[in-house]
């Protein structure tokens, strides 16, 4: 039972920390993509 708790805690630790990283990295690439598209469109508009 105690071992189960530790194993589960380890899974929460790994899953949680890597999950936060994954989530924010995905958001980072989405933001980059969004900015690139908008900047491109704005340049096109200006031209």
């Amino acid at each position: 039972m105690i071992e189960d708790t530790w194993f589960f805690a380890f899974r929460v630790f790994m899953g949680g920390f890597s999950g936060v990283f994954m989530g924010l990295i995905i958001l980072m690439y989405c933001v980059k993509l969004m900015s690139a598209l908008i900047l491109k469109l704005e340049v096109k508009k200006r031209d």
Partner: protein
Amino acid sequence: MAESFPLLNQIVLNTSFLHIQIGHVIMWGIAFTFIYLAIKKGFEPLLLLPIGFGILIVNLPLAPIMGMTEGAHGLQRDLVRWFYDFGIANGIIPCLIFMGVGALTDFGPMIANPKTLTIGAAAQFGVYAAFFVAILLGFNLKEAASIGIIGGADGPTCIYLTAKLAPHLLGANALAAYSYMAMVPLIQPPIMRLLTTEAERKIRMKQMRPVSKTEKIIFPLLGTVVICMLVPLAAPLMGMMFLGNLFRESGVVERLNKAAQNELINIVTIFLGVSVGATMSAEKFLHPQPIFIFLLGLVAFAFSTVGGVLLVKVMNLFLKEKINPLIGSAGVSAVPMAARVSQVEGQRADKHNFLLMHAMGPNVAGVIGTATAAGLFLTMLK
């Protein structure tokens, strides 16, 4: 004498004075300390003042504040119990505060430099370190998660998660979170100096590009979709925050924006502070657990700072344009205090170095990171 004046006798017996216990007196001391720190030292006064008053009033014996009292229609909630049950226990107040936070936050620095999102993620390391240490100290998984989230340095998220996973720890957790948030300028600088060299602290960063209005308007929509799809249980917090931010950036609902930034956040902060303080009655609070929670909160804050600074140092191994590692510590969400600490430490090394706007990126990314971490805890532990 007493028999001659039965009504007077009854009044005397029903005053609080005859029911005072040592625990109450200790809690008054704690209440007065928080009120003193708020008024005299300016430590998070918007929260520590109502929390301190809540602690005081709930520890006045016989006062119908946080329990259930027999009324005309049977058992009824006492005054603050209404606030607690309908505002905190179901997570409404933290989410409304997040709407205000969103309306007050400029995500521009983060949009200009999206790499800072990874710093916000790394600064959640303390959350998981404290989670592990809490289990080592005998807390169960849900309690450990609610303690760990203190390391995110985000009061509303801490309260939201604790109310869902371990409501009996609410008072201690909230108090630890807000106390350490007020102490960010004391906790972080020694760790930052320990982990960086003088040369690293002097790194100057290139001025950020201007962020267009369109980007600022689309970001809250994008953030809502991405984060809420990835971690649906973070949606109440993240959704409200991005809604508040959309009010701000859209520029077409100035009244709603002002209401979210001022009236709404102020009103719910009163209910939040008093309710959290009122959870700290002597019989619930005077145990070894809150002491452990305070120690674990410190562990969480320290490791979060370490996580943010170290990630920047690792990133610098691969980047052409180096990032000043001092902005890594701002990945804890205490906005804008943690960013100001980066600025102050940067200027200690180089008077003409301005890091504040660079540090705001990881700072607001930390808010997203902490709410995501809370959503993930809920997903895994509920």
